[in-house]
């Protein structure tokens, strides 16, 4: 089964490798450039000296050169890659066999169809996890200067770092696999799988945005200029931590009432979003296995 799976998915594996190389080369170049900008703005030294309190100007300058530029392109790519890759790999696994009639060949060899499918799924899912982990690792290295001074609990970093990216690929894969079984058509299953995945991508974006489950409201004492100048755009944020995402600041006497997402919400939110992606993907793949097993009746 290992050779059969490899041979049948060889074109997709080659494409995925190509996509990875392009992303990797681009993000590595971006990472080197980001490091040199980071150093030329002397942010590292400033952070070490003051913990970020005096580095507002330097950070703003760094963020300006990074965000307006090529990072945006990578973000857009990383937003669609999981869906396209997962749907491209998942749709033909059953869809093409059913569309071209080769299921009659595949399932009349000496390996029963359920075992055939489970073996294929195991190998393909393992390959997708390796792909996702590799992309995540490259991006995390590339963006580590950015991560020190910016918010990671929202896109772009959130969707490309941690476990969300890999789980997102698996979600699209499972949905397209099931669509292939139901539609008996590769292209149709790719489209259906991709757009079904978009729904859950939308859910994940809501969770990193308006429906953020880890939002905190805190009251901070302040005095003088610190009170009047405080805003959601302050660098560093009024909460003092560069990774915090401040939603709103209201003044109440000698206090600031701050509504924000702490930087520490990154991993809990990764597990919530990744868990949703993974649960949907595995449920769809499980449904495909079950339906295929029952298909003889």
């Amino acid at each position, binding site marked *: 089964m290992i050779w059969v799976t490899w*041979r049948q998915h060889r074109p997709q594996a080659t494409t995925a490798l190509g996509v990875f190389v392009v992303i990797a080369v681009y993000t590595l170049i971006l990472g080197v450039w980001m490091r040199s900008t980071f150093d030329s703005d002397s942010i590292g030294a400033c952070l070490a000296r003051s913990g970020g309190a005096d580095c507002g100007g330097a950070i703003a300058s760094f963020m300006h050169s990074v965000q307006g530029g090529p990072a945006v392109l990578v973000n857009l790519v990383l937003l669609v890659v999981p869906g396209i890759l997962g749907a491209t790999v998942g749709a033909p696994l059953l869809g093409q066999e059913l569309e071209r009639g080769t299921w009659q*060949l595949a399932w009349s060899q*000496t390996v029963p169809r359920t075992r055939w499918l489970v073996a294929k799924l195991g190998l393909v899912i393992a390959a997708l996890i390796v792909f996702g982990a590799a992309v995540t690792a490259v991006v995390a290295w590339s963006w580590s200067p950015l991560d020190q001074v910016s918010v990671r609990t929202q896109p772009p970093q959130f969707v490309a770092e941690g476990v969300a990216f890999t789980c997102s690929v698996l979600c699209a894969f499972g949905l397209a696999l099931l669509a292939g079984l139901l539609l008996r058509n590769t292209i149709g299953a790719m489209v259906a799988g991709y757009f079904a995945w978009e729904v859950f991508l939308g859910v994940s974006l809501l969770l990193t945005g308006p429906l953020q489950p880890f939002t905190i409201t805190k009251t901070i004492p302040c005095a003088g200029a610190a009170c009047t100048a405080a805003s959601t755009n302050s660098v560093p944020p009024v909460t003092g931590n560069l990774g915090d995402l401040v939603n709103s600041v209201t003044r109440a006497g000698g206090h600031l009432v701050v509504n924000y997402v702490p930087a520490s919400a990154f991993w809990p939110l990764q597990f919530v979003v990744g868990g949703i992606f993974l649960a949907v993907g595995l449920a769809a793949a499980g449904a495909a296995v079950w339906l295929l097993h029952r298909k003889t009746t």
Partner: protein
Amino acid sequence: MTHEVGRVPALRADRLGKRYGNVWGLRDCSFEVPPGSIVGLVGPNGAGKTTLLALTVGLLAPTEGQVALFGERSRAQSAATLARVSYLAQDHPLYRGFTVADMFRFGRSLNPNWDAALAEARVAALDIPLKRKVKSLSGGQQAQVALTMALAKRAPLLLLDEPVASLDPLARLDFMRDVVAASAESGLTVLIASHVIAELERLCDWLLVLNGGRLQLAGAVDDLLAGHAVLTVPRDAGNGSLPGRVIERTDSDRHSTVLVSAPAGAVAAAIAAGPPDWAAEPAGFEPVVLAYLRRPRVATVAAGATGTAAA
């Protein structure tokens, strides 16, 4: 039950039925086929031929009854069943992007009894290069590669669903000759579903006729032909006065041509005892099959076909 090995039927169906929703695709189908025979499976589109084949391989599970292969019940999702039967589906599906060598490696990966030497010798004899992609082969070559895969699986029962439908006349002859040779060489039992009745007449020693999901005719070709006769009688001779059972009757101005299902002895006795203007001649393969296909409600299952079913 002390059957000799040779007497265990290669294929046996026992009140086999398959329902799709409210429609029976196949119903109440019982027959036996001895090992080593070449069986023709005939029927119009939608008669249940492919359903019968899929039930035999275990691609479908029966709604009622069962199929047994060499005495072992055929089960869906069972490696043991799959090992006993090779299935060449209609339009001989292959992976178009694979080379012939890839297809064989696919076969080797998924079949413990894979005969790589046989596979390679066959395509070499057919001048099909191992490095060619399937999609660049002609229809006849693709059918031969698919047949080669089915043979190299080394299963004792080979099922062919409309194997020559897409082939030109020369490729048909080559293909069928190879099937017969393979059967003769290794004692393979072959079941061929086909519309081409003339083709089956040359090849088959056993016949199954399906119509509307029902088995109409089953038995050894020789027995079936010996058990039918074409009578020419005056038009006013009633069916009740004729020997055996009337399968089909064609009336002309003065005479009627009647196909009857009756033992040869009964026909001879009736001719000898009957009026002088009665005549009988042996029934031909194709007229018998066509008569049953035109009369969906009539069934004749030869004694040999179900002989042990009652035991």
